């Protein structure tokens, strides 16, 4: 008898090299999702080019690192091009040639994508060795294992978010991407990353500027975990951790640990910006045919936020979950949504097709598509600037309630 548990057990016997490859590529030992990069090479090139251009411009007119970062972030997220009014830039210090001597936390920008509130902050001064991220989290110094961690605290909560930029032991800098993190309860227990509780305080290292000794972090706050009407407080501090084991006799070790606050960068407080959201519901849903099945389906509507669109569809055979029927409808819906676009008032448009994620058990099928710039990177749009949506060969004007017969 073959059942799913037997099959799951058989999967456990997959060759070691395949499992090891997955551990390595997905950074499973780091307990930290790796930053999007595998399919984003083109996006990175575009982003780097944009940042270089902005940097050159900024340097030419003498902007401060905070103003430069704000411009880079706006360029990277196409805030200007899309006129995103959910994006908020905060007042920051202007041109300052000297490296700051006092620990400083500067709030740069925030935006609300409907699911997360994102906050960008600058931290300074951060020495080169403090800014390094690496897969190796520790370094041996005079018999002590030493590592650093940045601790974030949100809203006065006692839970901590820890991030570890460290030396890699070879004097080399690691990749500037996601830094490892863990969430610790007030009683010292680790909260597994698989829980939603652990996911709502994502903090990503954006970039480091050695000249001004400033590091930029991107913080994500899951909206459902906070009161959107109350200000958010973000605190940040840098800690040294030391540990060593001393052997007294056979099998007798004394483990010594020591944690020291290196410096606190202070706190910033901000209000969560209002989200952008648009709902489309067709009064007479556009109908499409599945020639292979000789049946029809319809597009019920879509929910559009600043970062994604969720299409809602249904079809005559939604109750049939058999392999052949499901696959046929997946291919059909993929085809129907191919070429769908969001059209802005200024004449530009954005692809928004997406693919069916899985067969549904309800009558509605949801297809999620994240907004991207030519399909190569994430972008944020101003929902208020949308003029129409094109799907299945027809263009429907917004606002939200649309009669497809028009």
């Amino acid at each position, binding site marked *: *008898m*073959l*059942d*799913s*548990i*037997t*099959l*799951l*057990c*058989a*999967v*456990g*016997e*997959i*060759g*070691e090299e*395949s*499992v*090891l*490859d*997955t*551990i390595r*590529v*997905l*950074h*499973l*030992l780091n*307990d930290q*999702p*790796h*930053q*999007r*990069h*595998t*399919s*984003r090479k083109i996006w990175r090139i575009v982003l780097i080019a944009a940042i270089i251009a902005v940097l050159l411009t900024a340097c030419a007119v003498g902007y401060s690192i905070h103003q430069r970062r704000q411009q880079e972030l706006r360029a990277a997220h196409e805030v200007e091009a899309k006129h995103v009014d959910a994006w908020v830039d905060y007042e920051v210090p202007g041109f300052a040639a000297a490296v700051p001597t006092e620990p400083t936390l500067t709030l740069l920008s925030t935006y609300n994508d409907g699911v997360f509130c994102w906050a960008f902050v600058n931290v300074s001064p951060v020495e080169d060795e403090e800014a390094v991220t690496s897969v190796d989290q520790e370094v041996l110094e005079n018999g002590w294992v030493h590592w650093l961690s940045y601790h974030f605290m949100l809203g006065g909560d006692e839970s901590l978010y820890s991030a570890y930029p460290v030396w890699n032991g070879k004097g080399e800098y690691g990749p500037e991407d996601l830094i490892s993190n*863990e969430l610790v309860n007030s009683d010292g*227990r*680790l909260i*597994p*990353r*698989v829980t939603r509780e652990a996911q709502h305080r994502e903090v990503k290292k954006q970039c480091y500027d050695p000249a001004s000794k400033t590091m930029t972090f991107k913080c994500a706050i899951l909206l459902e975990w906070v009161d959107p009407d109350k200000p958010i407080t973000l605190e940040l501090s840098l800690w040294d951790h030391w540990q060593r*084991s001393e052997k007294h006799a*056979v*099998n007798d*070790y004394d*483990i010594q640990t020591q944690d020291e606050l290196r410096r606190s960068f202070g706190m910033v407080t901000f209000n969560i910006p209002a989200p952008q959201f648009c709902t489309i519901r067709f009064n007479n849903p556009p109908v499409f045919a599945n020639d292979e099945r000789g049946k029809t389906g319809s597009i019920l509507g879509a929910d559009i936020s600043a970062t994604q669109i969720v299409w809602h569809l249904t079809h005559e055979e939604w109750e049939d979950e058999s*392999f052949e029927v499901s*696959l046929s409808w*997946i291919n059909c819906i993929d085809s129907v949504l191919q070429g769908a676009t969001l059209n802005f008032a200024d004449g530009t448009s954005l692809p928004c097709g*997406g*693919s*069916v*994620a*899985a*067969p549904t058990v309800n009558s509605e099928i949801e*297809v*999620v*598509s*994240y907004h991207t710039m030519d399909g190569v990177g994430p972008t944020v749009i101003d929902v208020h600037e949308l003029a129409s949506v094109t799907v299945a060969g027809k263009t429907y004007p917004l606002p939200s309630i649309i009669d497809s017969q028009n």
Partner: protein
Amino acid sequence: MEDSAIVDLYWQRSDRAISETDRKYGRYCHTIAYNICADNEDAEECVNDTWFSAWNSMPDKRPSILSTFLGYITRNFAIDRFKLKNARKRGGGEMPLALDELEECISSPVDPAHEVEQKELESAVDAFVRGLSDTERRMFIARYWFLIPVAEISERMGCSQSKTKTTLYRTRNKLRTYLQEEGLC
């Protein structure tokens, strides 16, 4: 500490072997167990069982790569614990979801005519996985070896959840066809 040094500690029967293993692989094994059991205490016990099992198996064994060696043990302990503790499709976590998904790969879950030898099935699954593209293989192993939630796989692989779900769905369909062709279901 390098894996070989940790293994040396086991072979020397040093208590420090456990603390160093826990230090390097504790969180990794806990996550594997938690993804299956969806319970912190169960996960913790699976990890402790893993250290005990590793202690008993070294020597004689000398694993060159501890991550897969320990992950394999933890996964089996967690699956056993899940079987004991949970009725099928009850409880939280990724296990019931993963089992539901794998059900799609099986044409008839209770057909005595298709009695399958476990070893034959393991070889077939391994061969199938080797034939997948890199992305398909990594997503498949992440989901059904480590039972990592789809959202986290997407984040770790730098793609949308939609793409991950679609890839997994189509891989399961391929597996089903493959197992049918091999006469295994």
